[in-house]
C-alpha cells in the first residue's frame, strides 16, 4: 500500500480522536472555572464554585476531612441522584438478564413456529419511539400507584432494555453448543452445577455485553424517568437536563462529569468483551 496514504489515514485517526475528545475538555474547563465567557480560551478565573454549589466540596475554610464527611452526610441532591441512577441501573440490569436468559436460550437454540414474529415483537421497543408508549402508560401507572416511586421507574426502564438484552444473548446462544451440557449431565453433574460450570463460562462474555447495554440504556434514560417518576425519583439525567436549561455552564459541566465518569469506568472494564471476538454484538446482525 502507498505509504503516504497510510500516514494520512493515521493522521485522520488522530484528528478524529482529538475532535471526539473536545467536549470532554470543555466539560473539565467549565467545571473548574468561573465566568468563562467568550472569547476566553483559557479561563481567567479558576474556581471550585460549581462543586461547592453541588455540595460535593465544602465551602473554603471547611475543607477538612470532617467537613467533607459532614457535607456528604447531608445527602446532597447530586449524590441522591447518583445513587438512584446506579441502583436503578444495576437492579434492572440483573432483572432483565434473569428474565431474558431462558428466552434467549430458546430463541438461539431452537427453531419453532412464529420465531421470527416473536423476535420482531421483542425488538419493537427499539424501533418505536418511547414517547409513543410512555404517554399512554403514564395515566395507567398513576392510577395503579406506580407513579412517583422507585418501583414504577424500574419497571418502565425494563421496556427499552429488554430488546438489547434478548438480542445480544440470542446472538450468544446461536453460537453455543449445548452438547457439553448433556455430557456434564451424563457424567453426573446436577442442573445447577452444569449451569455454573458449563453454561455460564460459555455465555459470560455475551452476558457482560448485554449487561453493559442494559445498564447504559437505563443510565441515560430521561423521558421515561421524568414522566413515570413524576419528578420525585431524581436521577442524573433529570438533573443534567434541568441544569442544562438553568443557565450555569459550570454547574452543568460538573454534573455531566459525574454523569459520564461511572459509564466510562464500566466501559473500561468491559471493553475487551465489547470489541473482542465474543460475537456478542453480532446478535445485532440477526434482527
Amino acid at each position, binding site marked *: 500500500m502507498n505509504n503516504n496514504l497510510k500516514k494520512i489515514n493515521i493522521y485522520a485517526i488522530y484528528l478524529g480522536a482529538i475532535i471526539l475528545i473536545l467536549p470532554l475538555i470543555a466539560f473539565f474547563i467549565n467545571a473548574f472555572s468561573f465566568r468563562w465567557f467568550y472569547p476566553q480560551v483559557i479561563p481567567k478565573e479558576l474556581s471550585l464554585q460549581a462543586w461547592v454549589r453541588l455540595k460535593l466540596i465544602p465551602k473554603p475554610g471547611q475543607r477538612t476531612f470532617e467537613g467533607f464527611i459532614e457535607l456528604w452526610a447531608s445527602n446532597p441532591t447530586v449524590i441522591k441522584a447518583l445513587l438512584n441512577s446506579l441502583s436503578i441501573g444495576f437492579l434492572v440490569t440483573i432483572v432483565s438478564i434473569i428474565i431474558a436468559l431462558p428466552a434467549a436460550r430458546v430463541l438461539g437454540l431452537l427453531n419453532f413456529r412464529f420465531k421470527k414474529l416473536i423476535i420482531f415483537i421483542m425488538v419493537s421497543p427499539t424501533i418505536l419511539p418511547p414517547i409513543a408508549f410512555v404517554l399512554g402508560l403514564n*395515566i395507567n401507572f398513576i392510577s395503579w400507584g406506580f407513579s412517583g416511586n422507585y418501583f414504577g421507574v424500574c419497571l418502565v426502564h425494563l421496556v427499552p432494555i429488554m430488546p438489547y438484552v434478548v438480542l445480544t444473548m440470542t446472538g450468544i446462544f446461536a453460537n453455543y453448543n449445548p452438547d457439553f451440557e448433556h455430557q456434564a449431565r451424563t457424567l453426573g453433574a446436577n442442573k445447577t452445577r452444569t449451569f455454573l460450570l458449563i453454561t455460564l463460562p460459555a455465555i459470560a462474555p455475551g452476558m457482560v455485553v448485554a449487561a453493559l447495554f442494559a445498564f447504559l440504556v437505563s443510565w441515560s434514560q430521561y423521558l421515561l424517568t421524568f414522566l413515570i417518576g413524576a*419528578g*420525585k425519583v431524581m436521577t442524573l439525567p433529570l438533573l443534567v437536563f434541568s441544569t442544562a*436549561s438553568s*443557565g*450555569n*455552564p459550570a*454547574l452543568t459541566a460538573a454534573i455531566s462529569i459525574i454523569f459520564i465518569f461511572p459509564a466510562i469506568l464500566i466501559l473500561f472494564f468491559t471493553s475487551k468483551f465489547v470489541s473482542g471476538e465474543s460475537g456478542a454484538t453480532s446478535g445485532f446482525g440477526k434482527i
Partner: protein
Amino acid sequence: MKIKLKFLTLTFISLFFSKLVFAETAPGFNSWDDVVKAADGGQVNVYMWGGSDAINGFVDDFYGVPLKEKYNITLNRVPLKGTVDAVNQVLSEKEAGVTGDNGNIDLIWINGENFWTLKQANLLYGPFAAGLPNSEFVAWDNPAVNLDFGRPVEGMESPWSSAQFHFMYDSARNNYDDMPRSYAELSNWIAENPGRFTYIRPGKGGFVGTRFVKQIFFELSGGHAQWVGPFNQELYDKWAPEVWKLLNSWEKDLWRSGETYPKDNAEMHSLFANGEVDLDFTQSPRGAGPTNTAGTTPPTSRAFAFYENMIGDFNYWAIPYNAPNKAAALVYANLVLEPELQAAQVQPANGFCCGWGISTAKVTDAAGKAAIAEAQNNLGDAAEDQDILAKALVSDIAAEYQDLIEADWEANVLLK
C-alpha cells in the same frame, strides 16, 4: 317567612364561623401546633421552575437547612422546565383518580394562568394562606397581593416574593445613558445595533418573553390603565396587529435575523454573557445582582428600566388537593414569610434576589426590623434606581391574554 329568616341567620352564623376557622388554621388541622407536629419527621416535595440556578441554590440553602433543623422536615426540591409541568402532573393525577394524600406534589411555585387553571378545576387545597402565622406580615389588603393576574387569590395560594420586568446591559460595553427608555427608543436602538438584540420567545418556559410582548401592547395603545380588569377581546384585536407589525419590523436587525429566539431566560443570559447580544432581561428588583453573583453574567452587568409599563407582580406557593404532606407544605409556606428569610432573599449576595413578599412596615419585632434595615443597605450596585422602577411599575393583566399572545406570536411572528 320566619323559617326563612332563621335559615338565613343560621347561614350567616355558620359563614361567620367558617370564616373564623379559615383565619385560624388551614383545613384539616386544629391549630398551628397541630400542623407543626404533623409535619415533624416528614418530607416536603417542592415543585418549582428550576430555570434559575441562583434561585435553586437559595431554596436549598436558606429553606432546606432550617426546615431540617427546626422542624425536622426534609426538603425535596423538584426542578421543572416550566411550572406547567407540575400543573400537568396534578391534572394527570386527577384524571387517574388519585385523591386524599396520595398525590406526588406538596407545593408548587405558581402564579397567573397556572394558578387559575388549578383553582378553576378545584385542584387546590385550601384556603390556607390566612391560617399561616406569618400571614400577619402579608399586605392582604393590597390588590397586587390579593389579585393574581386580576383573579382573586382567596387564600388558595400564599405569597413568596415579588418581581418586576426590566433590562440588563454590560457597563463594559455600553453606557447607562445610551440605553433605550421605551419601546419606541428600543426600535431605534435595534436599527442602530443590528444583530445585537433578541427577546425570549413567548411560550412555555418563556413567560418573561410573553411579558416583554405584553408591555408593547401597553405602550402602543397609549397606556396600561385600559388593560386592567376582565379580558377584553375587542381591545386585544384592535392592538394585536400593530404589535406584530412592530415585532416583524425588527426582525431583520435581530440576533440571527429573527430566524430563531432564545427559549428561556437562561439561554438569554448565556447569549448576553458571551457577547452575542447586548441587552438581557431580568425579573429581579436587584437587576443584574443575582446573575453577577452566580457568575452567569459578566461582573460589569447593570440594570435599566423603561420609564413606563414595566410589569411587576407577586408570586406564590399553592398546595394541590392531593398533596401527600400538607402539614409540611404549610410549614414551608409559612417559613418563607419569616422576616429574616425575606430579608435574606432580597440581597444579591444570597442569589435569589426577588423583591419582598411581605410588607416590611408590618414587621414589629426587633430582630426582624434589624434584618430588614440591614438588607436595605445591601441591595448592591447592579440595580436600577428604585424610584424609576417604582414609577414604571404596572400590574399584570387578565390570564386569558397570556395564551392568546403566545399562540398569536407564533402564528404572526415566528411562522409568518
